[in-house]
């Protein structure tokens, strides 16, 4: 918590290939990047993002939202262009 807001920091492990890079043999490395990021809290979406190839490798997201309380859960999901997805859950900590 930061005041009355919940502070969310997410570090995602992802290659974020642009599809424009070539490998050692000169073949194009196929694009592979996160397309959608959704963060939900108590059944409501608090952040929804559409990403493209200009987002860095291993992206980091930091934002705040109102209405959360310590002990409640925040869920984050990303889906990439190959349909792979990952969902993580975190409990809101008190303090600061």
């Amino acid at each position, binding site marked *: 918590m930061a005041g009355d807001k919940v502070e969310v920091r997410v570090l995602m492990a992802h290659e974020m290939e642009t599809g424009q890079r070539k*490998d050692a043999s000169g073949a194009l490395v196929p694009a592979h990047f996160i397309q959608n990021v959704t963060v939900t809290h108590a059944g409501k979406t608090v952040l929804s993002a559409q990403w493209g190839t200009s987002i860095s490798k291993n992206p980091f997201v930091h934002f705040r939202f109102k209405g959360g309380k310590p002990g409640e859960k925040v869920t984050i999901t990303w889906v990439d262009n190959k349909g792979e997805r990952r969902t993580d859950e975190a409990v809101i900590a008190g303090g600061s």
Partner: protein
Amino acid sequence: MPFPRLPALLLVATLPCVCAAQDDTQKEVERYRQLLAEGNPADLFEAKGEELWKTPRGPNQVSLERCDLGLGAGVVKGAFARLPRYFADTDRVQDMESRIVTCMVTLQGFKAEDVTRNPFSAPGRPADLEALASYVAGESKGMKLDAPLVHPKEVEAFRVGERLFYRRAGPHDFACVSCHGEKGKRIRLQELPKLTDPNDARRIFTTWPAYRVSQGTVRTMQHRLYDCYWQMRHPQMDYASEASIALEVFMAKYANGGEIGAPGLKR
């Protein structure tokens, strides 16, 4: 006639703003670095390294948890802050990376050639050693570097490192000291530390391994040396070689007392 005067007034008014803008730029760069440090992707490598450390692997199917990094078998906490150092079992001075290799060979039964064939990651080919080094270094975060320089072999390594640091060679007639012997030098926008200056050395030596944003991965001190040797057009610096460790012993002497900030975050 107030109008003709106006441009002159404007010019005077804008001058201080230009200076302020430069200060602001510096501040903004600092702020950008701080923001980056909050979400250091090296954390991902630390977590992966810890998992690798604790997982039974290799022909012997054992973990690295009994590895002796200098503070006794199984002690990881604070070990990196006391490296490089002399190890009696191998009868040589070792840095963190060469010691991890030793443990992978003696405990897990890997072959040294296999472990060190691709010590640095490339796109599509992650390197376990980068993750393991991140984990081990991270376990000394916040501690003061206190690399010993007592054992005769440690002193010998220091002398060898010193010679290498100052010895000009190769087609460019370069030595480490060509780039790292003066304060305030830089390559393009990259500042170059004077490695015999404790202020610089403490700040730089203690923040490797580091996540290199430009390379999208963690790089280690061994990689830094390998790359410096390539940039100087010297013969290739072999991974965990005696020469590389000697240079680390040399640098550690000046960096001693600096707070470990590894795994760090660099350009």
